């Protein structure tokens, strides 16, 4: 009995690859299950530092779940997560997370600038007195997302897309090395989408790492450098050129994506 367990454990170790210390986020053997049904099953993925990576897959493929489990927000059944080669607990301050746009009942007169200032505390730590300089930094973050003119407006008075930009500005104020976003373009207007992708690309150009759950196959190749195709399991992963291929999309979406649709997409390997 105990010999069998030892054997299995040894075999498991031999198979599981080591975490990738050079990656912004490295996931090994990640399994998350809801009510005994695996939402994410035994996924290995390595998100390159200094790159923009999309997590793509059909509804129910476990995209958001993978992101949240990697952040430690929801418990994982098994698996190992490292961020820049460190355990999650030690690297938390290097990560900024922008959740999916929420339908919030904003009945409180909070000003936009105050929401952004809130993002700065974790970084400022014990020097966290809000000074003029912090206000200027918060305004600069708003400027980056094209919302500088709205600094003193109440958050509840903004459109959904504008609110999404404010929450991106709050994440910018955290000055993180790894930005993780859950469907940042869902339900936003074209101007907001353009503003957000511009900011994400500039973060990448500064050497930061960006990971986003993304649902629009038509823009994957334009927006991102790399892709993880996910359908509960990992289907393909890598640069757009090698991973975002008709064959990989066919395995990810199965019959849900007609060949004609795939033909219209801008894909890798072309």
């Amino acid at each position: 009995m105990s010999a069998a367990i030892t054997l299995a454990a040894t075999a498991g170790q031999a198979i599981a690859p080591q975490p990738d210390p050079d990656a912004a986020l490295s996931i090994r053997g990640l399994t998350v299950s809801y009510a005994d049904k695996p939402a994410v099953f035994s996924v290995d993925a390595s998100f390159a530092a200094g790159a923009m990576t999309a997590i793509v897959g059909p509804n129910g493929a476990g995209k958001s779940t993978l992101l949240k489990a990697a952040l430690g927000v929801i418990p994982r059944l098994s698996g190992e997560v490292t961020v820049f080669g460190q355990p999650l607990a030690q690297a938390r301050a290097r990560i900024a997370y922008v959740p999916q746009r929420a339908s919030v009942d904003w009945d409180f007169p909070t000003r936009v600038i105050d929401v952004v200032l809130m993002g700065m505390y974790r970084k400022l730590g014990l020097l966290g007195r809000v000074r003029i300089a912090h206000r200027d930094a918060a305004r600069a973050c708003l400027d980056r997302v094209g919302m500088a003119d709205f600094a003193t407006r109440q958050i509840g008075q903004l459109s959904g897309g504008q609110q999404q930009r404010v929450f991106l500005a709050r994440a910018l104020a955290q000055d993180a090395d790894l930005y993780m976003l859950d469907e940042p373009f869902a339900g936003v207007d074209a101007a907001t989408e353009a503003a957000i992708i511009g900011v994400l690309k500039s973060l990448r150009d500064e050497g930061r790492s960006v990971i986003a759950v993304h649902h629009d196959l038509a823009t994957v190749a334009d927006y991102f450098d790399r892709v993880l195709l996910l359908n509960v399991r990992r289907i393909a992963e890598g640069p757009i050129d090698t991973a975002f291929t008709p064959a990989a999309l066919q395995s990810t979406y199965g019959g849900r994506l007609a060949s004609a649709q795939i033909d219209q997409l801008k894909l890798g390997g072309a």
Partner: protein
Amino acid sequence: MLTLLSDRRSFLGGLVVALGLPRVALAQDQLSVVATTGMIADATRQVGGDRVTVRALMGPGVDPHAYRQTRSDIAAMAGADLVLWHGLYLEAQLEEFLADMARSRAVVAVADTLPRDVLIAHDDYAGRFDPHVWMVPDIWALVVDAVRDALIAADPDGTETYTSNALAHQTEIAALASYATQSLATVPEPARVLVTAHDAFNYFGNAYGFDVVGIQGISTNSEAGVQRITELVDMLVSRQIGAVFVESSVSDRAMRALIEGAAAQGHEVQIGGTLFSDAMGEDGSYEGTYIGMIDHNVTTITGALGGTVPDRGMQGRLAS
């Protein structure tokens, strides 16, 4: 499958209402949470909304440092889906009991998740930290993240609700943070001294640039105590500090010695008001919420030390 389940649930809910059965039948669907302090219970209510029922172990005016579990606490925790406590050694007398509880259910110390670089080291215990983080809204907003994450872990179906509610509550806290910063900045610089009953205000002092003096433990009977009181009186007089603050739970003998000492030097010091330190106000009142508690403290301190502040606080909701 999930859709089916929730359909069935709401269908049953409709039946229960129709038949006039007690509400208890529905409550079984809610996540049952026990929180140690009122502040954590309030955050849990804000984030959990209708999906959770929350019970706070410690009511208004209870000292968490000394609190021990009662028989009914044990029963409440045994029946709970999730137990949230503060951590950072705040519930010093409960730690062993909570460790026992953690063997059979989800138990999360929400303030233990804070990054170490926002924490103030404890004066008396190496490797420990001052637990009074709720005094600064910006830090408390990070604890709200931990409450959200604990609720999501216990009830993943509620992820969307918990995420939206946490965001909404954090923007309220952002407004509070801004009110605190702006109000306290109106206190004249020399007067930025907070003399209080016990040492709960270090984070507050650090964040807003106030010197903090806790007088608990200063004995008016010992020579050292008298010497310390004399020093404090000189400080009050020389910096022209007009007010000191009390907490209902702590003896004010030393406080009276301070006031009398200053009066003997011709300087009038008043009791600036009662501050909430380790517990919130009465249940059901504005001061019985986290926002109201901090609003009260900020408004009271600013007003008493010569700053400019609305009498009834950031929303005009404070008791006059």
